[in-house]
Each structure stands twice: as structure tokens, then as C-alpha cells.
């Protein structure tokens, strides 16, 4: 056990924890917006896959990573739009539509991958950028300020999302629509429009989350490459109590523990690998039991809105 508590190991855990948290952050922050407006989008995983595929394909064909990112965002937007139509306009049961969206995204990304690429190839993704000055700080510079653009983006997204939710007219509408859509409606707030916006925003961010895998972390596309990360992202939103800072805490905790379990294995500590792989999940449950009733979920979460009902 002692071999885990050396400086290089701890720095390694923090460094990979930060990198690993990136896709979760994009996806979970996007999902936070959707849920704060009252829509549970369980289809994040499928959207991430579409984003990962599209981002990769575009980047590969154009040779431009930023176009790839744009492509991923667009794919996410379209998936978000589909989810909005189904769950907001057609008022479908949100949990189930999410499962449908996942199947759709998983299938379509794989199908397109087969038809357009055929096999696995890799590209040169976003490279680490050392932040001037800060990047020179011993140790800290390396683990905090020597990442690729998408990692920085994910962490900057947190305060930004927090600001938008709490200090803008849009954020106020989102919060109101998620708590009491009838009330918002009587004040002329377009409930449907707000929900479309948040779900689409969530879609865009989930798309970028996928791209952060295929364009920055792994640099290739493979079918079902997210293997359920989207579900974890949704879980992190609950974990974070529907607040961006809380989501950040959850994403870091989950990623750190995941990094830790890999280190446990690397260091040859005698725990069956299957049990080690369980650790992040068990820890998340434990952390949840400790944080229990802390936050109240948006009152209208999963409830479709229709005018005239009260």
C-alpha cells in the first residue's frame, strides 16, 4: 500500500484524474442544464458516441481538429433536437426515450463508422499546451497547466455554467421552468423553447464530450467507445446536486478513484483486478449515501409540461 503514497504516484493520479474527468464534465454540465429545466436526458451516451464519431470523421477528412469539434457539436445538437422533439413536444416518458436515443446513437455511430471508415484509424489529436508562466511551476505546472485545449475548456465550463445559471435571464428562466413551468408560462416564458434550448445545449456539450475522447484523449473512433460513460455523467448530475460545482466535485472524485484503481493494479497491489475496477462505483455509492438528501431535485424533473394543467 505504501507504494501508492509516493509523490510521483499522487501526481500521476491527479494528472490522469483531471484528464479523465474531461468527457464527464462536458456531458454532465450539459445534462445539468437539461435537468435544471426539467428534462431528464438519459440518452447522453448515445449523443457522445455520435459526437465522437462525427468529430473524428470530420477532423480526419478535413485535417482540421476545430472543424471536427464543430462537427461533433453539430451532431450533438441534432441528437439533442431529436430528444427535445420526443420528450418536450411529444411528452414521451423521458427515461425511456433516453434509452431509445442511446440505442439510436450507438447504432448510427457504428453504422456510419462502418460505411464511411471501415476500420479503426487514428489521427493526431489536440496536443497539450503548456500555459505560459503557470505551466512552469514545479509539479503543479505539469499536472494542472499542461493539458490539451479540451481539458482546459471543460474546467472553464464549470464557472461559466454556474454564472449562466445564476446570473443571466436565461439561467433564471431555466431554473424557473424546472421548478414550476406553469408559473413561468403565466409570465410569458416559453417553456417549450427553454427546454429545447437546454436539451440542445446538453446535446452540443455531450457531442463535444464525445469529441474529447476521439480528438483528444484517445484520438480514434471505435464503436461503443464510451462504454456507458454517458450514464455515469447523468449520475454525476444527481451527485452534484444539480450545481456545476457539485458536478465538478463528482467528476473529479469518480475520475480520481478510477485513476487510483489503475495505479493499484500497476503497483501490483494484491487485489483482484475485477474488484479494483469496482472501486469507483462503490465509492460513488458511498459518497452518495453521505451526501444523501442534501440537494432537492428540480420539482418538474421528468414531468412534461402542458398548458392549462395545474
Amino acid at each position, binding site marked *: 500500500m505504501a507504494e501508492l503514497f509516493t509523490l*510521483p*504516484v499522487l501526481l*500521476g493520479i491527479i*494528472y*490522469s484524474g483531471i*484528464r*479523465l474527468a474531461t*468527457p464527464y464534465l462536458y456531458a454532465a454540465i450539459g445534462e445539468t442544464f437539461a435537468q435544471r429545466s426539467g428534462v431528464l436526458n438519459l440518452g447522453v451516451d448515445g449523443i457522445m458516441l455520435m459526437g465522437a464519431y462525427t468529430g473524428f470523421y470530420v477532423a480526419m477528412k478535413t485535417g482540421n481538429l476545430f472543424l471536427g469539434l464543430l462537427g461533433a457539436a453539430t451532431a450533438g445538437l441534432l441528437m439533442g433536437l431529436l430528444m427535445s422533439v420526443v420528450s418536450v413536444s411529444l411528452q414521451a416518458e423521458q427515461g425511456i426515450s433516453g434509452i431509445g436515443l442511446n440505442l439510436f446513437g450507438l447504432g448510427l455511430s*457504428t453504422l456510419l463508422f*462502418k460505411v464511411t471508415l*471501415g*476500420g*479503426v*484509424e*487514428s489521427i493526431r*489529436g489536440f*496536443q497539450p499546451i503548456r500555459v505560459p508562466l503557470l505551466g512552469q511551476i514545479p509539479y503543479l505546472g505539469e499536472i494542472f497547466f499542461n493539458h490539451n485545449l479540451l481539458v482546459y475548456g471543460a474546467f472553464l465550463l464549470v464557472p461559466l455554467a454556474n454564472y449562466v445559471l445564476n446570473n443571466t435571464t436565461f439561467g433564471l428562466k431555466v431554473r424557473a421552468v424546472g421548478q414550476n413551468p406553469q408559473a413561468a408560462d403565466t409570465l410569458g416564458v416559453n417553456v417549450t423553447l427553454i427546454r429545447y434550448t437546454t436539451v440542445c445545449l446538453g446535446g452540443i456539450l455531450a457531442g463535444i464530450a464525445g469529441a474529447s*475522447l476521439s480528438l483528444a*484523449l*484517445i*484520438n*480514434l473512433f*471505435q*464503436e*461503443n*467507445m*464510451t*462504454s456507458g*460513460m454517458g450514464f455515469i455523467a447523468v449520475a454525476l448530475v444527481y451527485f452534484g446536486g444539480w450545481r456545476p460545482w457539485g458536478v465538478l466535485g463528482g467528476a473529479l472524485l469518480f475520475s480520481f478513484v*478510477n*485513476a487510483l484503481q*489503475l*495505479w493499484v*493494479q*500497476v*503497483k*501490483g497491489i494484491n487485489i483482484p*483486478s*475485477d474488484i479494483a*475496477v469496482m472501486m469507483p462505483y462503490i465509492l460513488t455509492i458511498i459518497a452518495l449515501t453521505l451526501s444523501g438528501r442534501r440537494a432537492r431535485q428540480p420539482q418538474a424533473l421528468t414531468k412534461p409540461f402542458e398548458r392549462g394543467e395545474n
Partner: protein
Amino acid sequence: AQPAAPTQPAQEEKPFRVAVVMPSTITDLAFSQSFFEALKKVQEEEGGPSKFEIAYSEGMFNVPDAAAAIRDYAAQGYDLVIAHGSQYGTSLSQIAPDFPETAFAWGTSLDTFQAQGINNVYAYQAESQEGGYVLGTIAALMSKSGVLGVCGPVNAGDAKLFVDGFVAGAKNAKPDIQVNVTFTGSFSDVSLMASAAETHIAAGADMLTGSSQSVVGAIGVAKDRGAYWFGTQWEQTPVGPETVVATQVFDWTIVIRDMVKSARAGVLGGKAYTLTFKNGGLKLVYNDKVPVPDDIKAKAQETINGIMNGTIDPLSGPKQ
């Protein structure tokens, strides 16, 4: 669906029909692709689709679905139905007796169920540890840091053989080498595999290897971080043209050829095949873009020879 074709002695004009059921996809750069490519090669040899028909079901990680597919292909009168996944064994042992006129094959395993009185199942397996041992040798000799990383999927079957061989090879080549091994618990979790590779690199590894379709994630990371990769099952060079040093490639054609020949001759099972360096089923393929010192290449060849003539046990080392 067509009714089961009454099996007459093989007629010349009728095509030979093969069906294969695989857990991952035919483009997985690993287990399934290696087999499918071999099938296609045999198809070409046999004179194309009109003479040699291939049907496949990929992504059948759900065993009951795979079982249905196996049964279905048999019922449709395919001459050889291949269950390309060790997890399909139980299902196969239940289906094969219902279609005594059909030849089945099970990979990867060496059990043809003859002990259960079943005579129409072939079995095949790759002796992955052989290539693992050789690659371990090369990696240990090339490593500057003295640390190797192994990205395993689950600690069983083909992956286990390969990993054990790799570790043994490395340790024998350089007794003070450190080999770190991780498992992600999944054949398909690309992201976690990528994280595992990251961790290995952070722990000082400069040479990585791993098995299963999920290693593409690890190769992507190795490429990004300037580490080298040693592949197995299928050529993974496209993912890391300057990263993959060498690969143990499975060449199943010898197995397929013999099964086809045997089935045509009316022996529908009971044979167990292995892929080894000796029978040419395993091949060590270098990537031209990554220079490997000649002395190391020579050492590798020596190791292969040792394995072939039995002086080296790929799971432990040279025999006394």
C-alpha cells in the same frame, strides 16, 4: 429461411457455405477481424463467393443471441458453422447434437465435446503465449526505462495466455525488468483501456502491450505520448503507424483450410487445432517504420526458434 438442405455427398457445383458468429466486429483490429480476414483469404483461394459462401454475425456479445444465430445457420444448411468465441461453448454443445449433419467449430478452445459424445465440433485455439513471449523479449530489450506496461482486458482465455507469455518473455530476457499489468474488466471499454495506458506511461513504462479490441484506446495514448506498442491478434499498425513495433498476427487460414477439407470429406468434427509459430499460424510482423536493432531482431528469431523446437516454454522460459 430455407429448409435444412439434405446433405448429400458434397456436390461439385454447390458452393461450400460457411457461417461465423463473432462477439466483436469484423473491423475490431483484433480477435474477430483476424478470423474474418482469414475466411476471406480462403474464399479467394477457393474461387470466390460463388464457390465459397461466407455469412457472418458480428457483435454477438449477447450469448443467447449468438446461440440463436448458430442454430439458425445450422438450420439453413450451412456446411460449417463457426462459433468464434469461447463463451459460446455451452450453447454449441447443446446445438451441435441437433444437427448431426452439420460441421461446427468452436474457438478458442481445445474441447471438441467428444467426451460428451458429440462428433461434429472442431475446436481451435491460438497459442498466444508464444507470441507474447517473443514480444515480451523484444520489449524488454528495447526498453530504456526498464518498465513495461500490459493493458489486459480480462484475466482469462486468450488474453491471459498472451499476458502470461509476455511477462515470462520479458523477465527471461531481462531479469530486472519491471512489468506492470492492469486489467479493465472489459473487452470493449476503449476509454478505460486508454486510461490504463496513461497510467502505465505515468508509471514509467515506455513499451506497452495489450489484447482485445479495446486496446485501440491504449495505442492512441501510446502514440500521443511517444511510447511503443506491441500488438497481438491482428495488425494494429494503422492505429499507430509509428507506434506499433511488432505484432503477433493470427493466421487462421491453416485451420480453416483443414476444417473445410475435412468437412468435405465427411469428418464433421473431433479435431482440435492450435495456432503456433511452428505450424505457421502465428506470425511475428515487424512495422518497417519503427526501427528495431538487428541484435534484438536476431534475439527474437532465436526465441521463436527455441519455442518451435521446444527448448523454450513460453509460459515459463528456457527448459533445462
